[in-house]
């Protein structure tokens, strides 16, 4: 046992956390054991230490018993370190004279043998007590916050977050990868359950983004690099060439009319390839910004993306003195400084090629849900008329739910919006075509305001609901009525037999999944992904828009499937979280920074190793110096210093060895 240190009087507290800890760890025994350790002036167990009376207990002991240090053994420091540091401070001590020991996540929750779990708790307590005896008072570091915000992704989530921040007076950069903002919502005709027109509610917000003086909108752009930390990020954005000067184009579209291609010939991305566009085009009538762009893959003035200058350039003629078209445009890199970042990159629909049994690509009249959205859309390729790829009008339509979702072979999760959008499509397709519509579902999930009522309404409208996961879509006909039709083979699990239902059109309600580049975006902003690949929130209930990186927030479907109402709510929350940081004006940083001792030999080996360029060389003293404002406390220099002349606050040798010796000590307990 180590000698007691002079003047060190430790208060030790072990928390039951209700049953969370007490059911697996004998808390009174841990407290009794800790009381026997050197320097421990008081040792107590308590039901909920994080409660007000629990904190009061600590404060009172500090005053009445003259404590110098405090150790709490309870949950993860992520949850309550702040609480107990504050209590320590309120009791009159420096908050860093506190140490927290995790006996919940690291002990009671992961073990099943009460005796051994109690022994482990004692060992962890011993380690914390030995460590804290070396803790010195430290001061928090304050760094100012850059008030500007970067929003990545211009779907409804990004749009809403940007507008909220901008109207609160914050400057926002909105970076969207596609030529226009709007995301998936811009493609919908109506939105469930109210069936309000998507364009009518979205486009005003899109033009507000465009005209807001506080928003810098960079569409057709991507973030390529992020450096720095909360409050002080430096971000590099790549602006892809549209071969049209954004500031000069007025969106008159005369260039499109005069393109040497008289007819649109190339699959139109916005219409999911159902319509055609020219090489010079604007994604859709309400595109924001209202700026055309040239596709160098098909434009005659290029050959496979390389400028040849061989076209007559009738578009340039049409643009005349505005001179907005610039075939020599190159990509541009912009560097910006922001304090906070909101990532709102949305989702990608499940790739239907992964479920060949549903015949997409084999049978032309099988559609994805997004294609169906465009088919019923008044501004879609058919102006809202439901005309099939083979030119026919459907008399019967099947909508298959859960395509790619709730399936171990593809994605296990429920995509949450498909039941509702399938019903929306059922209503719209029936309205636009008069066809019989069959929904094939596993369960109807309609939890939301007005959602169940919408389901009732569809039942009343005579839409059919058949419960069963469809086995296959085939053109194998068994009866004359089935000839020339698509046959849905499904086990009707309510009726209890296998059915064959002939239809003319099939809609696959594809689930929502993370973007295929989610991993690289995750790395760019130092976030984590859950097992499914969606960005991980800091806490599923209590910090749903925060990430594990301070100052980086997430909103919308990039965090998981959700509908527009939930997306907008989350985007507002992310904006509020960003504002809370900005309006505080500064952030407090842990004082766990490194410092250089007087015996530094000036070898400079630490300087290139620092990932934050926080170390410089002072030629006057011939020693290294660390800029505390830049140091993030990663410890790289500490470990590498050949003379052991760098020390990191909260991780000095005595503290770390004290903890290690404490946990390994083989003392009778």
């Amino acid at each position, binding site marked *: 046992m180590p000698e007691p240190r002079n003047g060190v009087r430790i208060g030790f507290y072990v928390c039951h956390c209700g049953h969370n800890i007490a059911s697996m760890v004998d808390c009174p025994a841990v407290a009794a054991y800790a009381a026997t350790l050197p320097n421990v002036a008081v040792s107590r167990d308590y039901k909920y230490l994080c409660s007000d009376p629990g904190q009061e207990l600590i404060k009172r002991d500090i005053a009445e018993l003259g404590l110098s240090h405090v150790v709490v053994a309870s949950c993860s420091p992520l949850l309550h370190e702040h609480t107990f540091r504050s209590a320590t401070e309120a009791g009159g001590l420096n908050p860093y004279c506190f140490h927290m020991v995790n006996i919940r996540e690291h002990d009671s929750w992961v073990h099943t043998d009460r005796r051994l779990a109690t022994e482990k708790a004692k060992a962890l307590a011993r380690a914390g007590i030995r460590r804290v005896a070396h803790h010195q008072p430290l001061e928090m570091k304050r760094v100012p916050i850059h008030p500007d915000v970067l929003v990545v992704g211009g779907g409804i989530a990004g749009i809403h977050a940007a507008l909220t921040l901008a109207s609160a007076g914050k400057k926002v950069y909105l970076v969207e990868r596609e030529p226009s903002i709007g995301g998936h919502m811009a493609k919908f005709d109506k939105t469930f359950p109210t069936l309000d027109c998507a364009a009518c509610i979205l486009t005003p917000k899109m033009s507000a983004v465009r005209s807001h003086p506080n928003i810098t909108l960079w569409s057709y752009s991507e973030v390529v690099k992020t450096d720095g930390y909360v409050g002080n990020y430096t971000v590099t954005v790549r602006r892809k060439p549209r071969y049209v000067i954004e500031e000069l184009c007025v969106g008159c579209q005369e260039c499109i009319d005069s393109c040497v291609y008289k007819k649109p010939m190339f699959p139109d991305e916005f219409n999911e390839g159902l319509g055609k566009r020219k090489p010079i085009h604007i994604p859709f009538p309400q595109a924001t910004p209202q700026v055309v762009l040239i596709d160098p893959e098909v434009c005659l003035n290029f050959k496979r993306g390389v400028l040849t200058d061989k076209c007559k350039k009738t578009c340039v003629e049409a643009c005349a003195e505005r001179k907005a078209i610039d075939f020599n445009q190159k990509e541009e890199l912009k560097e910006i400084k922001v304090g906070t970042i909101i990532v709102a990159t949305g989702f990608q629909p499940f790739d239907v090629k992964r479920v060949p049994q549903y015949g997409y690509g084999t049978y032309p009249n099988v559609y994805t849900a997004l294609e169906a959205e465009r088919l019923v859309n008044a501004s879609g390729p058919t102006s809202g008329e439901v005309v099939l790829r083979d030119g026919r009008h459907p008399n019967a339509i099947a909508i298959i739910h859960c395509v790619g979702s709730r399936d171990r072979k593809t994605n296990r999760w429920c995509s949450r919006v498909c039941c509702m959008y399938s019903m929306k499509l059922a209503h719209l397709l029936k309205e636009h075509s008069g066809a019989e519509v069959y929904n094939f579902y596993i369960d109807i999930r309609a939890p939301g305001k007005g959602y169940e009522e919408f389901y009732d309404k569809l039942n009343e409208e005579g839409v059919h609901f058949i419960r069963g996961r469809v086995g*296959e879509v085939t053109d194998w006909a068994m009866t004359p009525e089935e000839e020339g039709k698509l046959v849905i083979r499904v086990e009707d699990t309510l009726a209890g037999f296998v059915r064959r239902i002939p239809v003319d059109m099939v809609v696959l309600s594809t689930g929502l999944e993370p973007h295929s580049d989610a991993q690289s975006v995750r790395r760019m902003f130092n976030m984590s992904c859950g097992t499914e690949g969606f960005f991980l929130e800091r806490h599923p209930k209590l910090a749903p828009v925060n990430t594990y990186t301070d100052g980086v927030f997430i909103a919308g479907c990039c965090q998981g499937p959700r509908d527009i109402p939930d997306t907008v709510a989350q985007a507002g929350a992310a904006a509020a979280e960003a504002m809370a940081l900005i309006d505080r004006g500064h952030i407090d940083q842990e004082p766990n920074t490194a410092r250089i001792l007087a015996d530094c030999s000036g070898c400079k080996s630490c300087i290139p190793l620092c990932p934050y360029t926080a170390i410089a060389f002072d030629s006057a003293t011939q020693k290294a110096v660390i800029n505390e404002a830049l140091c993030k406390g990663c410890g790289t220099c500490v470990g590498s210093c050949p003379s052991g002349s760098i020390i990191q606050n909260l991780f000095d040798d005595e503290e770390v060895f004290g903890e290690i010796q404490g946990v390994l000590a083989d003392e009778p307990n």
Partner: protein
Amino acid sequence: MKLAYFPGCSLKGLGRAYEESLLPVMKHLGVELVELDDWNCCGATAYMAVDEVKACVLAARNLALAEKTGQQQLMAPCAACYLVLNKAKHYFHDYPAIKKTMDHALAAIGLKYDGDTAVRHPLDVLLTDVGLEAVRQKVVRPLKGLKVAPYYGCQIVRPYATFDDQYNPTAMDKLLEALGATVVRYPLKTKCCGGSLTGTVPAAGMRMVYILLNEARKRGADCLATVCPLCQFNLDAYHAKVASQYGPVRVPTVYFTQLMGLAFGLPEKELGLNRSAIRLDWRPEPVPTPASKEAVTA
């Protein structure tokens, strides 16, 4: 390339034509097959349904024998053998209790299985190891004009999709195209052939056979190509019965290896083509020889 070879009972009996065509075709492509010495029942047939563990033990003996030969791979052409051997291997790795029984039973006869041998289907070997290009180079009598419905049956991609898509396998489609045949789009390619229902509940079995044959006929197929002796038998043996109930649906069913043999110009009598009840009469153009060319011009 050299593999251990597990023929199973079918390839020595009713499905003899499969072995008869497989062996020369593989040899022609430089794939050496060494028949497993003292192999036993794979464990399929009714065994699997009655006692899975015992069936797995039977399969495990074959796997252990294969391991003993030092070959890393075991070819099992019959769909049922292929499935059961694979299943035994999966169970060996996934279920410790079954592994224990297997170990115990094998130890009693002085054998040991380590769980390594890869069980391979000839289609897998042809596409993955031999390669379609090598197959194409051996084609001397392209199957030009022959319309084939590729029929995989239920077992080689389900439940384990080891080398092809579970719902829409295409290995045989690609192979047949390499032989010069026209592949008919056949949505029933993995639908059940009736299995043992043809014997136990004939009405149900006959209906399934009828559906498969009729759909192939409707799509203009000259024949069905199969990978499974049971499928071949079901689709070949009951034509009279099916015809009496549903009308004639006369489409022959052949092994894909027989078609390979034809395309490679191997002697027809070695390919077992005469063993089926409903024979494929179609033949590709003969290999042009200097003599035959003269005959044509004369």
